[in-house]
């Protein structure tokens, strides 16, 4: 199989080349390659497959919203060849048995699925989960995502303990629960609308605290979905001091502001909440200058009935896997914040390296595992939630004109998406 006529882009830069793929590997990169099967990449970018460090696949426990199969199909359609599945399943991924079960279910997925392990038992923030046992099953990302590890004492223990687990990263959902009691960003719009708020300082206090704990313990801390200007500034300052912290940003946090909530549409409800124009600008600046290391979708499927409630009652979160790339292209590349190659760094090789995934985000050269995506960065399309692969449809982008779409996805040599359609 030859992927023909594309612009090959990876950590080493870009060049016009064809890519030959045989038995799961890239076997040749060159010009004028021919093969029995040829995949058209003209006008497209051939990139290492995208990697999403932050998705909710809802299996086990909430299969009415998403399953590993449907979520991995959505990922493949979005250009992703690997995702990290967050542990807030039911039961939670806080135990080697659940981790093994998820890994087994993921054998037939349309992308590689790596379960994250919980930091604490039941994600309750009280006692450490068996991080070592989960680590021995390959888990590298530990997080209670959806919940913040509120106790500084528990967080410090987790970080100290993780020193004995090579490659482990402790990822924090940074929101102080005594401040983040409401449902949208606290500020002008929450005050106008009368919706109780979640202030920026709820996030920033935990980010600052955990920077101090990362410095003290030496264990890397990864901040999930950074959303405020203050958080970006704190992480920037911590990195300047050599403190081992990394951060991600979600596409909705560089695309929408809290003003979106003015119609009371719960599809805009997400934790941490959509912030102000200034925060959006700061997140973009943080992505541009390397303060924020990766883009992660925080893909959060919810069944329609939990979104057709009042804003205050609705579940927080929105779908992201099939729109992340397009939002990156329109809000970051077209807006002049970064080049397409820099965007792909944030969506492929940086998250792959951070998550310790050697088979993903690799330089496209002879011998590497063929985890690839072929992106048409100029294709304009209109999102119809009913056409998404996810079981749930909770995206506020229905009817929105988007630019840039994944065209083909190759998972270990298998074409799992061809011309925008999943092959299985």
């Amino acid at each position, binding site marked *: 199989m030859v992927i023909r006529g594309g612009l090959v882009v990876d950590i080493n830069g870009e060049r016009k080349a064809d890519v030959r793929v045989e038995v799961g590997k890239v076997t040749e990169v060159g010009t004028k390659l021919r093969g029995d099967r040829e995949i058209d990449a003209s006008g497209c970018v051939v990139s290492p497959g995208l990697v999403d460090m932050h998705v909710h696949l809802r299996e086990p426990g909430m299969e009415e919203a998403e399953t590993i199969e449907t979520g991995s199909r959505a990922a493949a359609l979005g250009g992703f060849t690997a995702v990290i599945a967050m542990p807030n399943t039911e039961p939670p991924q806080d135990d080697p048995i659940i981790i093994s079960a998820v890994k087994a279910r993921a054998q037939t997925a349309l992308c590689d699925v790596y379960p994250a392990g919980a930091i604490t038992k039941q994600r309750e923030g009280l006692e450490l989960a068996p991080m070592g046992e989960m680590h021995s099953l390959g888990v590298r990302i530990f997080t209670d995502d959806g919940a913040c590890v509120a106790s500084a004492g528990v967080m410090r223990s987790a970080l100290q303990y993780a020193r004995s687990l090579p490659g482990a990263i402790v990822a924090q959902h940074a929101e102080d629960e005594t401040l983040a009691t409401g449902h949208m960003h*606290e*500020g*002008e719009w*929450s*005050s*106008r*609308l*009368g*919706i*109780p*708020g979640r*202030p920026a300082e709820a996030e920033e206090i935990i980010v600052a605290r955990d920077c101090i704990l990362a410095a003290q313990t030496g264990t890397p801390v990864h901040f999930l979905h950074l959303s405020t200007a203050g958080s970006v500034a704190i992480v920037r300052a911590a990195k300047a001091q050599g403190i081992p912290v990394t951060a991600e940003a979600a596409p909705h946090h560089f695309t929408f502001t809290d003003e979106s909530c003015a*119609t*009371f*549409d719960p599809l805009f409800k997400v934790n941490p909440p959509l912030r102000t124009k200034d925060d959006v600008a700061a997140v973009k600046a943080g992505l541009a200058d390397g303060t924020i290391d990766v883009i992660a979708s925080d893909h959060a499927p919810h069944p329609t*009935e939990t979104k*057709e*409630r*009042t*804003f*205050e*009652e609705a579940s927080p979160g929105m779908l992201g896997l099939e729109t992340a790339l397009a939002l990156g292209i329109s809000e970051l590349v077209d807006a002049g914040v970064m080049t397409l190659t820099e965007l792909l760094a944030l969506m492929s090789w940086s998250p792959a390296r951070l998550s310790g995934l050697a088979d993903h985000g690799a330089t496209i050269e002879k011998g590497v595992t063929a985890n690839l995506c072929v992106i048409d960065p100029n294709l304009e399309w209109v999102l119809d939630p009913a056409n998404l692969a996810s079981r749930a449809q909770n995206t506020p982008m229905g009817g929105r004109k988007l630019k840039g779409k994944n065209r083909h996805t190759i998972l270990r040599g298998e074409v799992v998406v061809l011309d925008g359609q999943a092959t299985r």
Partner: protein
Amino acid sequence: MKNLLSISDLDQAGIIEVCDLTDSFLTVTHRDIPKVPALRGKTVASVFYEDSTRTRLSFETAAKRLSADVMTMNMSSSSVQKGESLRDTVQTIEAMGVDAIVIRHRHAGAPNQVATWVDLSVINAGDGRHEHPTQALLDVYTARRHLGDDLSGARIAIVGDIRRSRVARSTAKAFAQMGAKVTLVAPPTMLPDSLAGWPVTATSDFDEILSDVDLVYLLRIQHERQDSMAFPSLREYVSRYGLTNDRATRLGPEVLIMHPGPMNRGVEISPEVAESDASIITEQVENGVAVRMAVLYLLLGSGAPVA
């Protein structure tokens, strides 16, 4: 106009139109048979997800005086308890051929959402901390009867837990829309987190503005707010923000007192002040029925002159 979701749905001319209609309906309510056939054949459903005897009775009385049929949905004992969604509930009501839903909900924006799900008229009877537009209309109407039709320059202080008050969010805007100078008075924990977009000023010093107001509008203080750390104790609240007899003596002789009810006598207002000549609180309630008749008539009526 189809819905009344927010006081912002009305501009100054719209508020004046409601007030003018209210004048005619107030005459109706003073007749021996206080009823007109204006909405005969129309059905109004009052759908209250939160207990509110006063507002519900006011709306239902208004609808009946206009000869509309009234359906009362007590949502605390209905299918909601069986898990029916808000959307299913209002679409069921719509399917019964109702012309308007008067909705009270404990969450902000519920009426806005309902209006996107059904074709009939939606009237917000109070939603969470968001808005209570008919309260604002009856407040403006009542104030105009005492201060004159032109409220421009009138100095109005709204005192209490503004941050958590739907009444404040509607009434402050309505008074400002009419040209009044509105000052919010509360401890910083009870002022909005941001005043951007609020056509008002704010202070935490009640005493400072006592000599500089024409109307004091007091909000009900909810005892449970102590748990949210909005204030240390009721005693301290009264001493700093209550309209006590002592503070009342420092108001000008013509100053009016308003309150959306129900009052906590001895907390935000002393019993003597509540009963004093300055208080026009009972009149607010009376005008409330006529104002709601005007709103229902505007949304559902033929547009023909009131009988």
